[in-house]
Every structure is written in C-alpha cells, then in structure tokens.
C-alpha cells in the first residue's frame, strides 16, 4: 500500500532526490515523521480509536485479574472450593483449570480483536495520507 504510492511519485522527481544529501533525507524523514505523530495524535479519529481499544483492554484485564485473584481469596478465607465435584476431584482443581481455559480463550479473543485494530490503524494512516484527518 505504502510502496505503491512511493514508486509512482518517486519516479519523475528522482533528479531532485539526488541533490538531497543523506543527512537532508534523514532530516526530512524525521520532520515528516514528527508531523505524522503530531497530526495523528491530535486527530479525533485516532483518539476515539485509542479510547475504545483501551477500554476493551483494561476492562478485560480487570475481569480476568479479578477471577484469578478470587482463587487464593476463596481458598484462604472460605472452604467452598474444598467440596468434591466428581469422585475425589475437588472444585478448586476445576476452578484452577478453568482459569487455564479462560487464558486460552481470552488469548485467541485478543488476537482476533488485534487484527481488527490493525485494519483500523491502516485505514487511519491511509486517511492521513489523503489529508482527511480531523
């Protein structure tokens, strides 16, 4: 996506690029990067996206940490997890292994959400290139 634009624009101005020294190119790239960071960081679209994402990340984190820390709290101060569920298998093992299952499920959930996030980021960068960020 990036490269396509680059090649099509670069071809005719190649002479001009040559006159730029390496240092100048680096400085120009730094300037453009700074500008990108500033404009993207200030844009409403970006802020909204970050807020949404962080709400998702932190609320999920709080939930799984709460479920996790309930395990030692329940074993320390109550005996609910001591009861036998099937044969001699006690609830505490079921709870602990459910936390394993939770970890794997939330892990794949994150990966799926992150892929969506990647797409949103790509769309925002595209929008920035076209000068459409507000």
């Amino acid at each position: 996506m990036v490269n396509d634009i680059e090649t099509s624009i670069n071809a005719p101005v190649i002479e001009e690029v040559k006159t730029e020294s390496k240092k100048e190119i680096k400085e120009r790239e730094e300037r453009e990067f700074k500008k990108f960071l500033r404009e993207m960081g200030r844009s409403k679209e970006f802020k909204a996206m970050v807020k949404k994402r962080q709400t998702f990340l932190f609320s999920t984190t709080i939930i799984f940490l709460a479920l996790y820390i309930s395990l030692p709290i329940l074993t320390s101060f109550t005996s609910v997890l001591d009861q036998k569920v099937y044969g001699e298998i006690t609830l505490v093992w079921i709870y602990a292994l459910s936390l394993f299952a939770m970890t794997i499920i939330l892990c794949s959930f994150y990966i799926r959400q992150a892929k969506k996030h990647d797409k949103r980021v790509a769309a925002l960068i595209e929008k920035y290139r076209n000068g459409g960020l507000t």
Partner: protein
Amino acid sequence: MNLVSISFFLGIVGLTLIVTYVAAKNTSDAKDFYTAGGGLKGWQNGLAISGDYLSAAAFLGVSGAIALSGFDGFFFSVGYVVANLVVLYIIAEPLRNLGKYTLADMITARFNEKKVRAAAAISTITIVILYMIAQLVGAGALIQLLFGIDYWIAVLIVGTMMTTYVLFGGMTATSWVQIIKACLLLFGTALMSFLVLRQFDYSIVTMFDKMSTATEYGDKFLVSGLKYTNGFDSISMLIALVLGTGGLPHILMRFFTVKDAKTARTSISWATWITAIFFTLTIFLGFGAAAFVGIKDILAANVAGNTAAPLLAEFLGGNVLLSFICAVAFATILAVVSGLVLTGASAISHDLYGEIYKKGVLTEKQQVLAARIGSISIAVASILLALGAQSLNVSFLVSFAFCIAASANLPVILYTIYWKNFTSTGALAATITGLLSCIILGAMGPNIWSTTGTAIFNGTPWFPLSNPAIITVPLGFLAGYIGSKLSKQKVDLEMYEEIQVKSNTGVGVSGVSH
C-alpha cells in the same frame, strides 16, 4: 554417572554448541547481539518465551511443590499461565512498538532523562542478579545431586557454558538454546505424564481417587491449605507471579527479537498454549512423584522437593528416563541463565555505559565489544555470588525477583504507556519505592528471620509475609502517582500523544514518508 547419562548430557551440550557456532557467524552488530537482529519468527519467539517461563524453578520446583503440598503447589502453575494474559493485553505490543533493546529504552522513549534510564537499568540488574543466583544455586545443587560432582565445580560448569553461548552467539544462540530446551522439556514432561496416567489405568478420576489416600495428608492433599496457612501469603504470592512476569526484564527483552507488534502477539499466543499445556502436566508429575516416590523419599533427597521430578523419572523409566530428564533439566538451567546474562549485559552495556556514560555515541563495533564485556562481568559477578550463596532458599529468591518486577517495573511500564499526566519524577519515585520497599520488607520477613533456625538470622520476623507483593505493588503504583502529582514538571502532552501514536500504530520513521 554412567554411560547413558553421559551421552545425553554430552548430546545436549554438543547440540547447543553447534547452535552457538552457527549463531556466532550471524552476530555482527549490537542489534544481532541483543535482539537476534529482530528476525525471530512468532513461533520461535513463542517457544523461547515459554522456555523462559519454564525455568528450573518451574519444572523442578513446581512438580516438587505439588508432590509435597498438593494443590498449594499448583498455585505457581496458575500464576505462570494467567500471567501470559497480562503480558498480552497490556504490555507486549506497546513495548514492542516503543522499545529498542531494553526496558529502559522504552521508558526513555517518553522521558529522555539519564536518571530515569539509570533507575530502570538498576532495577533490571537487581532482578537479573537475584534470579540468576537462584538459578545457579539450584543448578549447582541439582548437578551435585544428579552427577555427584562438587557444588562449586557444578556452578563453574554452568557458568562457563552460559558465558560461551552469550559471548559468541548473542541473542540468536540464547534463543535457539531456549527453543531446543522448550521442545525437549515438553516432550519429557508429556512422556512422564503419560506414564503416570498409565499407572492410574488412564483415568483422571482414578488418579484423584488414589491420590486422596496416597499421602499422609489424605484428601487434604487435594485442597488448598497444606502450604499456605496465612491467607494473605498465597494472595501476595499470586499477585507477585501474575504481575511480576510482565515486569521481568528477560521476558520483556524477548519482545524486541521479533520484527513488529503483530509477531509479538503471535509469540505470546504460542507461549500461552505451551505454558497452559506444560503447567497442566505438572499435576501428573507432582501426583506421580507423591504417589510412587513418596513424600518421605522426596524430602530425604532434597528438602525443597526439587528432585521430585527426576526421582519420578527413575521410577517410571529407569536409568534411561532419569538420565534424559536430568539432561533436560540441565539444558533448562543453561537456557534460562543465558537469557539472564544477556539481559543483564544489555542494562550494563547498553543503558549504563552506552547511553548514559557515552551519551549514545558509539560505533557498532564498540557497542558489541561493550555488550561482550558486560556479559562477562554480569556472569562473573553472579557466579561469585552463587558460590557464596549455596545455602540460600532458592524459591524465595525467585519469588522475590517477581516481587521487585511487579513493584518497581510494572507501574512505570503501565504509566508510561497509558497515563497522560505521568512525569519523570513519578517514574523515578515508582522505581525507587518499588525496589526499596521490596528489599526492606523482604529483609524483615520470615525468609531472613526465623525462630526455628530455618532462615539466616534467629529472631521473630518483623513482617509476616514471605512475599511482600500485596503491599509493595500498590506502593509502587502510589509512588508513581504521587510523584507525578507533586512534581512541578509540566506534563508534555505532545510527547504523550506521540507515544500514543507510536504504541498504537507501530509506525516508525520509515513508515510515513511519501
């Protein structure tokens, strides 16, 4: 030692040396040395991360703890597994996007101040040294027990091997040693678990039935309460485990070995599956050892239960399996300590020497040389400390390292990425408070003071918990908050916006020009 164990032993040493030889050819600049050129694939780094989780403390320590105290031993396993989520959800991607080689790089991406870098480097070095002493002491004791060689020779062997890997092969060799070991360890554990289950007629229900009578504890073995009698002890320990993992510098460093945030998340996905499988299997190892070796014999071999897994291997598969498991345990120790040496070296050579003392003005050659000298110094320092620390309680040191990571590193990491009003004063306050409160409360705790002679000094502990995380983690966060609020520094909003863009998009300098 017999022929079988010698050949397994030499096989592993030979394999890792070949890996180091190949890696050495591809290690030319600082990026190669510290991060394997950032060229690891997701599954490779995932295996290497799980390799870091599956240290000797995890493999030998957890299976021993389950064998000796039933469910209470399994708490560690739960902590290690859920920790993956903390790393994945709030740390991995921003860290990958902001950092370069070290934790300090990531924090100074926001606060470009020497003090901040120095504080992060010092907490890294403290954690690395504690963790490394624990691994080396454990390794020495294990090798002494398994092969019958003297403790100091054992420590020197491990020390020489780890220095060789790091010095010549850098992160590439370290990662591949870690990958090889993770595969061997998974195979060995799966095999032993299968053999244990076979003893119970392939039925988990039968296994639990038998375990309710197999030990002197009866069915108390299958519920919590054998090890943790003070309720807050287990809670504090679990806080340290789940939050500490995300602040352990040698784990964090692994995220710089991949090319982007996307690969970083794939790495954790791999690590999550592998650790979940491995730590489920620790139940079989622990139960098997308790049932077939017996708690009495496990305690007779090692008070902390560290040799439960090898003893079980001997019961299940005779000398061949015993030799194999011992060789794997040896590889485990080597792999983890190599990663630690490299992390320590990055803090000394890159942060303290390169960025602070030399102000970042070094040629590639000088950087690599500095990295190698840093590796040797951290290795020598920890070998010397380990030689003098033979009698120290290893699991205490490890949990203590987790505690410092959770109290001193994690608050700074999270605030740097997510909190707008964080200042460099806050960063310093959080690191210093976290580090000092851990050390002070740890020094007043039951691992140092005991009336029964099980600790270093004789006396009543001033602080009741063996792991102070439940106090020190909130303290670290609080210090970061108060430090930021009280400081007169103006919050650099523009800088924070930049950080947000970088951490959320992963776009670098070369990614925007058009």
